[in-house]
C-alpha cells in the first residue's frame, strides 16, 4: 500500500473523520468548484469491494457512468440524467476497494481546454483562483490539486487529462488506447479517447492503472496485452521552437533535460516533421466522430426536452438547440461538414492518412529510444474569461497532447515545480503498453522536482 493510501484509508470509515472530511470538502470546494455533485452515500447501496484501494475516495469526471449518480457531461442536455449503470473502469476501482465520492466538472462533453465550456458551473485553478484549471478534466485536476481526493478519473481525447493535470501541478495519465475499457465513458471521439487518472502520488497512479487495465468484453476495442518492461535509459526530447513556449514552460522543459541526465538517462533530440499536421488531423477526426456520437441526444429517451413541440422532429431540434452550448454546436457542425459525401477525401480520409503518417513517424522514433519527452502545453494555466487564451489559440495549443491520441500511445504529464506561483510540467510518451516506463521516469524525477502543494489544499493528516 502506498503512503497516500494509508493516510486516506480510514477517512471514510471513522464517523468523526468522515464528517470532518465532508465538511472540509464543502468549504474548500465552495471557492474552487471542482465537484458538480458530491456524496459519500453509494446510491446503489452495494457494499464496497476489498483490495489495494481500500477506503480510497475517488472523484469521477462527469462523463463517466457511475450507477445512480448524475452523468451530466457538463451539459444542460444531460443535466438531470442519472447513470443507469457503472463504467467498467469505475467498477474495477470499486471492486479493489475504492469509493466514488463525487462527479467532477468538465468542459461540455469534453470539448474545451479550460473548463469554461461547462454549462453547469465554474471551476478555478487551486493555485490561483483567477486562472483556469485546464480542461476538459479540469474538475478532476482541481479536486486532486486541492487535496479533496487522492485520485480522480478523467478522460483524454486530445489532452484532456494531461493538460489540466499540468495546469494544476498533479500527475495525469493518458493510457494506451484499448488498455482501459471505454464502456461507460460518454463518447466524444471514440477512436481517440481513453479514461485516464489524475493523482499526486505516482505509486497510487500505478496501482490504479493496474486495477483498471484489463480486457473488457463490453468494449470490443479493449485489448489484453502484456505491458512492456519498465527499462528505460534513453530519452529523446522533441525539438521545439523557443517562441512557441512561454518562458516558464520553456525553462521547465530545459531543466527536465538536466534532471533526467542527473538521474542517469541519456537524452537525445528529435524533430517530428508531421507535427504541424497533427492539430488539423485531430480536429477533423474528433469533430467527425463527435457529430455522430452526440446525435443520440435528442430529448426523447432521456435528457432535456422542450416543454412543448408540434412533432418528434421539432422536439429533437429544440432539445438540441436548447441543450447544447456553442462550442459543442460548433464541433458538431464541423464534424458534419467534414463527413459530407463528396468531401470526405478532402477532409476525413486525408486526416486518417495523416494519422497513419504520424503513427509511422513515431514508430520510427521509438525504434531508437525508450521515451519521448515533450511539453504538455505552450503556456501555464491562463486567466479566465476574455483576458485568457482565445478558443482558436487553445485548439492550436493541443499540438503536444493530441499526438498521443492520434497514435493511441500512452503519455504522462509530470509536474516539474512552481514558477510565478503556477505549476509547470512536461510529458513523457512511451510505446504502446509502456506505462511502466512512464511511471519510472516520473519516479526518477521526484528528487529534482518534489511535488508542491497548492495553497489552502486539504491536508488529510490534519483530520483527527
Amino acid at each position: 500500500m502506498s503512503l497516500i493510501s494509508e493516510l486516506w484509508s480510514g477517512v471514510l470509515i471513522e464517523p468523526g473523520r468522515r464528517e470532518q472530511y465532508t465538511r472540509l470538502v464543502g468549504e474548500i470546494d465552495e471557492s474552487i468548484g471542482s465537484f458538480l455533485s458530491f456524496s459519500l452515500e453509494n446510491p446503489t447501496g452495494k457494499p464496497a469491494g476489498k483490495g489495494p484501494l481500500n477506503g480510497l475516495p475517488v472523484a469521477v469526471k462527469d462523463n463517466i457512468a457511475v450507477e445512480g449518480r448524475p452523468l451530466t457531461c457538463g451539459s444542460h442536455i444531460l443535466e438531470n440524467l442519472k447513470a443507469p449503470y457503472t463504467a467498467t473502469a469505475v467498477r474495477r476501482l470499486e471492486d479493489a476497494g475504492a469509493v466514488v465520492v463525487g462527479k467532477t466538472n468538465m468542459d461540455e462533453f469534453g470539448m474545451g481546454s479550460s473548463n469554461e465550456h461547462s454549462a453547469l458551473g465554474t471551476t478555478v485553478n487551486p493555485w490561483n483562483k483567477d486562472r483556469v484549471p485546464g480542461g476538459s478534466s479540469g474538475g478532476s485536476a482541481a479536486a486532486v490539486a486541492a487535496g479533496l481526493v487522492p485520485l480522480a478519473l478523467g478522460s483524454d481525447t486530445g489532452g484532456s487529462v494531461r493538460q489540466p493535470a499540468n495546469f494544476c501541478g498533479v500527475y495525469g495519465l493518458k493510457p494506451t488506447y484499448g488498455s482501459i475499457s471505454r464502456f461507460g465513458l460518454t463518447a466524444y471521439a471514440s477512436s481517440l479517447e481513453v479514461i485516464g487518472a489524475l493523482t499526486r502520488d505516482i505509486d497510487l497512479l500505478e496501482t490504479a492503472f493496474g486495477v483498471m487495465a484489463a480486457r473488457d468484453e463490453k468494449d470490443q476495442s479493449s485489448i489484453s496485452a502484456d505491458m512492456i518492461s519498465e527499462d528505460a535509459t534513453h530519452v529523446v526530447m522533441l525539438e521545439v521552437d523557443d517562441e512557441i513556449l512561454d518562458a516558464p514552460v520553456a525553462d521547465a522543459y530545459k531543466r527536465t533535460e538536466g534532471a533526467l541526465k542527473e538521474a542517469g538517462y541519456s537524452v537525445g533530440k528529435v524533430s517530428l516533421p508531421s507535427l504541424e499536421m497533427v492539430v488539423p488531423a485531430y480536429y477533423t477526426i474528433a469533430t467527425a466522430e463527435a457529430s455522430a456520437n452526440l446525435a443520440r441526444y435528442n430529448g426523447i429517451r432521456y435528457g432535456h426536452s422542450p416543454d412543448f413541440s408540434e412533432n418528434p422532429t421539432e422536439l429533437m431540434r429544440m432539445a438540441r438547440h436548447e441543450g447544447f452550448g456553442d462550442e459543442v454546436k460548433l464541433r458538431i457542425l464541423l464534424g458534419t461538414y467534414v463527413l459530407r459525401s463528396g468531401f470526405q477525401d478532402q477532409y476525413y480520409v486525408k486526416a486518417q492518412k495523416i494519422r497513419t503518417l504520424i503513427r509511422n513517424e513515431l514508430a520510427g522514433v521509438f525504434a531508437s529510444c525508450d521515451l519521448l519527452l515533450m511539453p504538455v502545453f505552450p503556456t501555464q494555466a491562463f486567466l479566465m474569461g476574455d483576458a485568457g487564451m482565445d478558443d482558436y489559440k487553445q485548439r492550436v495549443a493541443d499540438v503536444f497532447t493530441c499526438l498521443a491520441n492520434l497514435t493511441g500511445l500512452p503519455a504522462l504529464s509530470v509536474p516539474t515545480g512552481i514558477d510565478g506561483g503556477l505549476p509547470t510540467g512536461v510529458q513523457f510518451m512511451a510505446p504502446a503498453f509502456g506505462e511502466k516506463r512512464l511511471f519510472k521516469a516520473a519516479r526518477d524525477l521526484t528528487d529534482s522536482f518534489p511535488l508542491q502543494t497548492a495553497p489552502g489544499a486539504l491536508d488529510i493528516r490534519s483530520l483527527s
Partner: protein
Amino acid sequence: MSAHEKYDVFIGLEIHIHLKTVSKMFCSCRAHYGDEPNTNVCPVCLGYPGTLPLLNERAMELGYHVARSLGCRIADRTSFVRKNYFYPDMPKNYQISQFEEPVGVEGLMEADLGDGGVRNIRIHDVHLEEDAGKMIHAGDVTLLDFNRAGYPLLEIVTEPDLRTGEETEAFLRDFQRLVRYLGVSDGNMDEGSMKCDANISINHPGKGLGTKVELKNMNSPRFVRLALNHEVIRHAEIIDAGGSLIQETRLWNENRDITESMRRKEEADDYRYFPEPDLPPFIPDDAFLARVEASMVELPLDKKRRLQAEYGLSPEQAEFIHDDVATLHLFEQTVRTGSSARNVAAWLSSDIRKLLNRENLSLADSPLSAARFSALLKLIEEGRISGKIAKKVLENIFSENSDPESIVEKEGWSQISNPVELALIVDKVIGANPEVAAAVRDGDMKQRGWLMGQVMRASDGKAAPELSGKILDEKLSTIV
C-alpha cells in the same frame, strides 16, 4: 404496344430480413416479437451515453450463411460503418451498418420467375445492420417502442435484373422460401420480419438503365408487384409524352393503388458514412467458417428438382411439397419411414391440406406428426383399413389428437377381410337386389359397381374392397 414491349425495364431490390437470433445485434436484450412495448431494452439499445456495441456473433454467422447460400464471395474481413441520419425511433441517430466491407458480394440467386422462367438474379451484396424502434401515432401524441431497436437485420441487394412486377413477386416468394429453408428468418412481410424496397428505371431498348426511382412502403409481395407495374406505366407515359423522369423516392399507397412522391434526390439524406470506431473488423476463423459450411442446406429449386427426379412426384406435387418447409419436412420424415413418396405427396396435397385449411391450422401446429402419418399409411398398405376409412381416421387424428391405431381400435374400423364374413354381406346385398344382380349377370358391368357400393355401405365401409369384389364376382357367376 405495351410498356414492356416498348421499353427495357430494370428492377432491383433491397430486401431486409430480421435474423432469427435469441438476442439483439449489439446487446443481450431479447429479440422477440409481440412483447409489451419497451420491455426488451437496455442502456445499450436505448443509446445511453457511454454504452458500446457488442457484436452478436450468431447474427454474423447467419449473415455468412445467407451470403454463402446466395453464392456470394464471402468476406475474409468484414467491418461496420455508421450511417448517420436523425429519426425519432433511432436511439443513436446513426445506424450501425456495413458499406465497403459487407459480409458477401457478387452472388447469384436461381429463381423460378413464373412466365419469366428459371433465371439467375445477380446479388450485389449482403450486409448486416441493426433495426430501429417503432413509432406509433396515436391521436395527437406519438408513442415510441424500442423493443425492435437493435434487432439484427440482413440486407440483400440485388442487381437490376428483374423486369416485371410479376417476376419480382415470384422472386420475392422464392426468396422467402429460401430464408425459411435456411432457417435464418421467418420472412413474413406482413409481420415485418421481411421488408422490401425496390428501385426501377425504364429506357428505350438497348439504352441501358434509365432514371432510377426508389419505391418504399410495400408490405407484401403483391403490393410490390402492383407498385412496380404502376411505376412501369407511369414511367412509360412520361417518356411517351417526351418528358423525363425525376430521381426520387416514392411510397406505395395501398389504399389508392398508386405511388406518391416522398422526397427528391436533392432532399435525400447524406448518410455521412464513416468507419464504426467501436467495433473492430470481423475476421472469421476456420471454426466459424466450418460452422457456416455445416449449416448449408439444399436450396428450394434443387429440392424441387430432386422431388421429381428421385421420388417421381409430378411438377404440381413437387411445387406444393417444396413450397412450405413444414410440409417438406413432414414429407421427408414420412418417406424415410418407408412410406411411398407418391402416396405421402398425394395425402399431403389433398386431404391433409383440406383439413388444415378447414381447421385454419398450420402443419407445425397440427396434431399430425410424421409418426402418425406413416402409421396411417401403413394401416392402408397392410389392408387393415380402406382408403375411405383412412380419411375418417385422419379427421379423428385432428379432432382427438391421438394415434391412428388407437382410433381404429376404439372405433372398430378395422377392415373386414374374413371371406366367410364377407360372403354373408355379399349374399345379403344380392338377395336384396335380385334385378340388379340379374342385370350384372347379363353383362351390365356398371351395375356391378353399384352392387359393390352396397357391399361397402352394408359393411360401414369396412369390407376389404379387393376381396369383397372377388367374392361378389364369384357369387354372381355361380348363382344362376
